[in-house]
């Protein structure tokens, strides 16, 4: 009986159009996040990623106001904000937490205004929740081409800049000495980051964007000693976790309170968190018992 029920749910799952759209979008966003997220951590720019997501919310909410898909709003404002961040200096940003805090609150204040206007202007239910916390199951099929295109651009940027990016992430000085145009590389990466954050914002929401951006990559960094493999592992973790999140969200329609699905973002973030804690604990234990032993290959 229970088994019959789950077969029924799975069959219904794949035949649902919003689910198929969500699976495709989720796949792309997770792969982009694995790729860009790995470098975001290596370059110590998680904070910049989070700032971009917060600022991006203003663009996303403005897009609802003028009735265009939120992704355009996120991309537009994130690209501008990313370049401004680079201009100010990402390195200095962290040190200037007061100024950064004020800019971020200003952007969120704007978001509050736009969201308020959205709720009185349109009949769309719960814009606020879907903007801030994502609603991957409500992504429209017509947004798939732009999601795929933006994702492909972000991945292409990282692939083209790959080696100089690794080198400049280790040390700016090393990169400069090798004749690498460090500033151009940094700007290129920031564009990829801005695009990535726009994508994560529409799947898990502006607020939870960072979780998908750096979560799978943070887990991957603990599992491998090689940059390329870290990207592959992070992408795989991201895809699996996102798909599980979509499935559980779909399935939760039958959970209490009945006929109200739980948000996929919750599942995604919860699984990433649990996975990180588990992997981190295992790696720590292994290091403790294997002190001084050097890996032979790998």
């Amino acid at each position, binding site marked *: 009986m229970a088994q019959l029920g789950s077969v029924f749910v799975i069959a219904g799952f794949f035949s649902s159009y919003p689910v198929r759209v969500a699976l495709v979008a989720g796949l792309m966003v997770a792969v982009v996040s694995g790729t860009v997220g790995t470098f975001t951590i*290596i370059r110590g720019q998680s904070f910049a990623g989070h700032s971009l997501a917060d600022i991006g919310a203003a663009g996303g909410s403005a897009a609802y106001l003028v009735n265009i898909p939120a992704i355009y709003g996120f991309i537009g404002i994130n690209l501008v904000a990313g370049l401004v961040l680079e201009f100010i200096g990402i390195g200095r940003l962290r040190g200037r937490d007061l100024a950064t805090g004020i800019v971020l609150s200003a952007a969120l204040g704007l978001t509050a205004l736009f969201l308020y206007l959205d709720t009185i202007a349109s009949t769309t239910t719960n814009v606020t929740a879907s903007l801030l916390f994502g609603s991957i199951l409500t992504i429209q099929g017509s947004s798939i081409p732009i999601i795929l295109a933006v994702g492909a651009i972000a991945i292409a940027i990282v692939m083209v800049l790959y080696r100089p990016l690794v080198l400049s992430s*280790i040390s700016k000085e090393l990169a400069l000495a090798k004749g690498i145009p460090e500033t151009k590389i940094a700007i290129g990466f920031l564009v990829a980051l801005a695009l990535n954050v726009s994508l994560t914002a529409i799947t898990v929401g502006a607020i939870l964007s960072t979780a998908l951006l750096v979560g799978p990559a943070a887990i991957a960094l603990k599992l491998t000693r090689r940059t390329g493999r870290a990207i592959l592992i992070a992408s795989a973790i991201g895809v699996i976790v996102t798909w599980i999140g979509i499935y559980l969200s779909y399935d939760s329609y039958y959970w209490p309170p009945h006929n109200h699905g739980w948000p996929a973002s919750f599942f995604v973030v919860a699984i990433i968190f649990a996975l990180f804690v588990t992997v981190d604990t295992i790696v720590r234990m292994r290091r403790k018992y294997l002190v001084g032993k050097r890996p032979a290959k790998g």
Partner: protein
Amino acid sequence: MSNVDQNPVKLLELEGVSISQSGREVLHDVTFDIYKGKFIGLIGTNGSGKTTLLRAILGIISPSSGHIRFLNSSKQGRSRNIGYVPQKIDFDPDMPLRARDLVALGLDGNRLGISKRKKSDKLLIDSLVEQVGAADFANSRVGELSGGEQQRIMIAHALISKPELILLDEPLANLDLRSQVEIVTLVSKLAREGNITVLISTHDMNPLLPVMDRILYIANGKVASGEVSEVVTTESLSSLYGHHVEVVNLKGRILVVPEIEEGGFNFLRGIPGNEDH
């Protein structure tokens, strides 16, 4: 151990080089030549401008006046292949990068795109790893290596592109005495084998004494260059610092002793170059 070279070939010349950074003149009217195949020690206290000088030679920064010129070559500054070991890099222990990957980046880190490495490149990487004695830890994360191990990897990274000139910025800082000797011996051996010119900066010249051909002594934004026996003398260094400095040879170790003023040691004035430049 200075080589008696009848016809030394000039590699690089600095003429009247002054460099200002954020409105302060770090180097003033510095002139010297670097000859091929020499092992040159760049000696000065912390903040004396050693890093600035190395970065100028690399072409990362430009002099505000004067010029830095590589002889017999159209390639200058950053377009040149110069090996560089910067000051200690803080590697994140989680950085997913094996020691041998860092060596490999010395070969192709400036190239765009990703491609599978050729067999010959892999062999070259292996041989460099072997030459610097890093085979045992080549597959470990760089962030998990000791200071001395990281320096070996950085030296392999700098040498793999077969440069004529290699610059090392304080590679001995934070190393214990034994590792210091090992690193100096290694650099000197590899440089002589490959006829590579070495410019190595340190605040303590003593570990370099057995292998150094020439010395560049930097203080108060000025530089004195020559043989160790010419430069590191009471007269020469006193004139460089602009006040009396005593050079003492104690059982083969050269000590530069701060002046003694009335009222005792004045460390801030006495220790040359310690004005926190």
